[in-house]
């Protein structure tokens, strides 16, 4: 894969098998933009990340192994903060919060992860989420300038890469077709109403409400009512 102009980069994405060539593509991105590392992390993608997060990175494989072995995804502040926000996340806002996360950043640094980092939260049409991160070892004024310069391109590349992952991995989204009543009952449950209260509101028995919620739970493939509500919101079924 040749490096080259920005458009060549994007074009090369279209014909890339993410497991075979994703790593190499990200390396090209890193080199083109003067970055130490680039990493994609699929966090909440049906069928793909059900058991484990899906990552494609330029990181040293020893860091990846360590990250998996120590289950760092649970404490990684970049993932925890990044997944809940819209704005690109500058890693410097996460420093100095507590000893554990500072230790995590130090250890990452030992494996070559850059000190300065920026993570792009990705939200897909079906409620799936991922995180695209870049990092460098720039000193501060250089980092601010680089951030501004790469911002737009990275937003595009992040999303394009995410789309590529979905295609390349054959991720399918089942469109969950909830009936009007199922949606109503879930919406009131999302508002914190009990089945009895929902029944009062809709003029039906509470057992009927529970019936509709159970129907929805099955369609959403959720383990319980709370999960059903959360999942319905996330995939925007309600």
């Amino acid at each position, binding site marked *: 894969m040749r490096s080259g102009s920005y458009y060549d980069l994007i074009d090369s994405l279209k014909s890339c098998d993410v497991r075979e060539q994703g790593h190499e593509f990200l390396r090209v991105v890193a080199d083109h933009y003067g970055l130490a590392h680039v990493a994609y992390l699929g966090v909440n993608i049906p069928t793909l990340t059900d058991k484990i997060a899906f990552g494609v990175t330029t990181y040293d494989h020893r860091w990846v192994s360590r990250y998996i072995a120590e289950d760092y995804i649970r404490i990684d502040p970049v993932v925890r903060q990044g997944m809940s926000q*819209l704005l690109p996340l500058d890693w410097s806002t996460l420093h100095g919060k507590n000893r554990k996360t500072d230790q995590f950043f130090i250890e990452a640094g030992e494996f070559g992860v850059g000190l300065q980092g920026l993570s792009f939260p990705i939200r897909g049409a079906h409620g799936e989420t991922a995180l695209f991160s870049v990092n460098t070892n720039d000193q501060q004024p250089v980092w601010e300038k680089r951030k501004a310069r790469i*911002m737009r391109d990275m937003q595009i590349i992040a999303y394009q890469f995410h789309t590529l992952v979905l295609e390349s991995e054959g991720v399918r989204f089942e469109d969950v077709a909830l009936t009007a009543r199922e949606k109503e009952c879930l919406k009131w449950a999302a508002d914190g109403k009990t089945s009895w209260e929902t029944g009062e509101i809709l003029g039906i028995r509470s057992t009927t409400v529970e019936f509709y919620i159970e129907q929805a739970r099955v369609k959403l493939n959720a383990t319980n009512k709370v999960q059903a509500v959360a999942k319905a919101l996330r995939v925007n079924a309600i």
Partner: protein
Amino acid sequence: MIKLIQGNDANQHPAHIAQMFRLRARAFRDRLDWDVKVVDGEERDSFDALNPLYVLSVDSVGRVVGSARLLQTTGPNMLANVFPQLLPSGTTIRSPLVWESTRFCVDTEASPPRAATGLSPASGEIMASEIEIGLEAGLTHIVTVVDVRMERILRRSGCGFERLAPAVRIGRVLSVAGLIEVSTAVLGSIRNAHRLGEELAIPPSAMAQNVAA
């Protein structure tokens, strides 16, 4: 003063978040009589559960006097999921460079239009903030759905709203989807219309603590 609240941070600002939802109830149900759901005096919908970026205008005594929320168009959003009829059939706006702004409202008693501009300062602050956020995040546009009354206000406010399709009646409300360009020109035009200064409306910087002034 602008306050940005996103994701997990909402838990750290419960009072302002609650004020925002109550302001939304007053603005959309009480004043505009829209078909929105209000529970315990707060207006919320399913998109509030998706960790939007909330833009709040807070006055000198800490009251929320205006608010809006931003969502990515790549993910679930109102135009794609609730009002697709506002775009030509079969088209969607789905781009990492376009975010959607919804639930824009201002407490016009607490932040009334100024005589000099005819516009509310809180309104201008929020509009300017959205452009500043867009510039920082590398966006090209903000897309928004408004009623035709708000459309006129956006134009007078210097936003340069560009319709994506003809207006469509949704319930009782004649609504229209349109784009606002994210650019320093539009930012300047909003600041001029509201007689805002050159300083950033949003906290410096929304994305990092360490920014040289």
